């Protein structure tokens, strides 16, 4: 049974992609094998994070991009696998990064998936395609599956919620984000009652955290009292190195001389990854 989780908050810029990449990398550091799925938009930020953007864009330009992430939402995907064999399809779909974790990058074709699934009447078919793909083809191959979701309430992200059920919310210390996280917790309750799925807000991770400032400490207290059981053990320190590493196409785990804040952030990601395994089980345990 693989650990499955989706990183989600209905607001852009809270560090969803960075969180997905670094948690995935931290789980890899802890000895687990996993794959990241980028549903967060065709800008392919996860591919950029792992320095694979150019290669993927070249594959698209050369027409060597089939099948891709949008293909798994096609109702003929299983047929495609039957006709060609599972390994032939997964080999084309999944990229190996230099950091040990595998990646299924975003694809421009995802743009049209929402419109196509909108016409599918059966609810399980509409929201459950990614879940089926994950359960049929990925769960037995990996210890963990992390999904980066766009900050939008639409059919493709809901597919991610169905597939992962466990949600991780990276949050900044602000009133808007606090309200959004409370909203997410309410939404999770709706997912459970409306769809009968086992959705849960599994971890709230304070991100870009500046310890010692009154505002950050005040918000930390508010978050802790509101989301007690879901809070991550460690906040992620604000660090210019995270940005620098991202721009260089790597995670901070690859930095040879991390700054103090980056080293602290790295330890926090590891602690949060350990806790995630503890809370959710799976990950090859």
């Amino acid at each position, binding site marked *: 049974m693989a650990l499955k989780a989706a990183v989600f908050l209905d607001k852009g810029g809270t560090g969803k992609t960075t969180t997905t990449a670094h948690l995935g990398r931290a789980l890899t550091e802890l000895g687990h094998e996993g794959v990241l799925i980028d549903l967060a938009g065709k*800008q392919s930020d996860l591919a950029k994070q792992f320095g694979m953007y150019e290669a993927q864009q070249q594959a*698209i330009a050369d027409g060597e991009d*089939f*099948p891709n992430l949008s293909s798994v939402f096609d109702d003929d995907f299983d047929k495609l696998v039957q*006709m*060609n064999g599972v390994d032939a399809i997964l080999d084309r779909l999944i990229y190996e990064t230099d950091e040990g974790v595998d990646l299924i990058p975003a694809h*421009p*074709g995802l743009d049209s998936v929402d419109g196509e699934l909108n016409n599918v009447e059966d609810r399980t078919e509409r929201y459950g395609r990614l879940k089926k793909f994950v359960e049929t083809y990925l769960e037995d191959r990996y210890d963990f599956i992390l999904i980066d979701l766009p900050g939008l309430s639409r059919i493709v992200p809901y597919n991610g919620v169905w597939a992962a059920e466990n949600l991780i919310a990276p949050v900044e210390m602000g009133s808007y984000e606090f309200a959004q996280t409370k909203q997410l917790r309410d939404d999770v309750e709706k997912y459970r009652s409306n769809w009968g799925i086992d959705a849960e807000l599994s971890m709230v991770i304070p991100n870009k955290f500046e310890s010692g400032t009154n505002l950050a400490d005040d918000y930390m207290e508010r978050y802790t009292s509101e989301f007690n059981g879901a809070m991550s053990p460690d906040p992620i320190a604000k660090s210019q190195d995270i940005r620098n590493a991202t721009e260089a196409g790597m995670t901070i785990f690859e930095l040879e001389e991390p700054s103090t804040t980056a080293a602290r952030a790295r330890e926090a990601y590891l602690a949060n990854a350990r806790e995630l395994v503890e809370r959710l089980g799976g990950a090859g345990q």
Partner: protein
Amino acid sequence: MSDDLKIPEGMADDRGSTLDEEAKATDRFVDDLAAALGAVERGDVAKTVSFRDGRTAALFNALGENDNELQQAVEDARAAAGVDDDSEGDRSELLRLLVRLGLNEVTPRLADAEKQARMQRIEDDY
């Protein structure tokens, strides 16, 4: 790479060539946008934008006379855009934020293209 794959009938139709064309058109637009950003940076193109609309002109004229309304509107726009700033705002900032929010909300493709163009500019510079 996909040449040697057997593809179910109907599956390949909505991938590949159509998307390639769309992607190429987007790439061209991003290239044009990156060039336009360069022209603005060099001063070849003005940084100001103007448009003709009497109602909007009246609204912003009145906001210029009513600072409380203006500051409230700026605050709302900043909150919606996720901007953490409590300094005093002005009409120019309000318009800028509203246009940005509109682009993100209504035409995310344009907002995305603009982001790509800015990245391209940075890469071109270094």
